[in-house]
């Protein structure tokens, strides 16, 4: 399951690439000038394949009790330590495909980037479409393509950070692969997990995908501009989300019209100074 070397699963090569902002048509906004000093931390992800000599004859039972997610969790903790040391607020944005993660980020970057340094990691199975959309706002962004992988893992984020080099005190948005199931299990080292649902998806999403809501700290309800046209009860969605999780904070927004975005920014700022 090594996202960096792609050694775990054949045919499932992961690629991680920073978008070159010099080659991007900026959408009327100026790119962030400052780039962090180079990191001297080399790629030290290694494989423990040293041969051992002690041949055991016959059958041996090894009681190992090893956490299957142990390696990911360990790397996630390393990422978390890095974020804490640099006072970076890292957010893992999760949702079904098309809930508006990228739209939310485009809007957020346009509104906040002169105030707070912002960085983005985009996770998608294929294409750099989302990273290109983000780059057009002038924000530094790395695209991770997971190939057949349906979620981001901590090692991918670690590698992406080496390319991104976020500055102290910045905001790091990690847009996970659009999928309400798989990303739930994989800690990336984020400071908070934000689940996004849109009103076109049905208000019972929290009950259908409880794991994702269970592991999130904030729920954003997006596309509220479409509420008049769909059968979606905001109150019901909140009620269901409260059943499966301890989420107490909900923010209703429209990423396209901008309604409610100030509450999201207030949340970000509060969280950043916490």
């Amino acid at each position, binding site marked *: *399951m090594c996202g960096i070397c792609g050694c775990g*699963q054949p045919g499932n090569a992961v690629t991680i690439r920073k978008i070159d902002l010099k080659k991007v048509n900026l959408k009327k906004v100026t790119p962030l000038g400052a780039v962090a000093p180079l990191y001297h931390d080399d790629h030290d992800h290694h494989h423990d*394949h040293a041969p051992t000599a002690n041949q055991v004859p016959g059958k041996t039972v*090894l009681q*190992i009790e090893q956490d299957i997610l142990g390696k990911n969790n360990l790397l996630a903790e390393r990422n978390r330590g890095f974020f804490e040391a640099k006072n970076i607020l890292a957010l893992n944005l999760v949702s079904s495909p098309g809930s508006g993660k990228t739209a939310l980020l485009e809007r957020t970057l346009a509104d906040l980037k002169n105030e707070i340094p912002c960085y983005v990691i985009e996770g998608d199975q294929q294409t750099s479409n989302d990273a290109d959309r983000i780059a057009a706002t002038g924000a530094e962004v790395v695209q991770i393509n997971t190939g057949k992988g349906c979620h981001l893992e901590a090692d991918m984020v670690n590698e992406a950070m080496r390319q991104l080099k976020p500055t102290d005190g910045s905001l790091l948005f990690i847009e996970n692969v659009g999928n309400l199931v798989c990303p739930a299990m994989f800690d990336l080292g984020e400071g908070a997990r934000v689940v996004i649902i849109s009103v076109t998806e049905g208000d019972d999403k929290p009950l259908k995908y409880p794991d994702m809501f269970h592991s999130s700290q904030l729920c954003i309800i997006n596309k509220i501009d479409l509420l008049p046209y769909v059968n979606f009860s905001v109150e019901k969605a909140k009620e*269901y989300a409260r059943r499966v999780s*301890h989420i107490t904070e909900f923010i209703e927004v429209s990423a396209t019209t901008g309604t409610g975005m100030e509450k999201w920014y207030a949340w970000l700022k509060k969280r950043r100074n916490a």
Partner: protein
Amino acid sequence: MHELSIIASIVEIAEAEVEKAGAQRVESIELEIGELAGIEFSALDFAWEVGVSQSVLEGAERHIHRIGGEARCSECENIFDMQALYDPCPKCGSYFSEIIKGKELSVKALTVT
């Protein structure tokens, strides 16, 4: 389907252990998986053969200890069986609870030869 990457992690653990022990292959593997761990057991079954092919786990016998979910109600302290994360406390009806069992996801043991 994250079960495939879970299997890849199991393979990684098994390969490292086989090598450490100087063994050749795994005869059987014991897994402990909680019912609230986020693993779809049928998906795990479905992906297993492909996931372990050409690894030390190919052909290994697989034993899964399924651990049922258990939670402690945050309101009344009642301990109850939890099948799904949205199950309320049967005593007081509260949805606020803390999971105490069912999140397990580990390789317990390997029999290597």
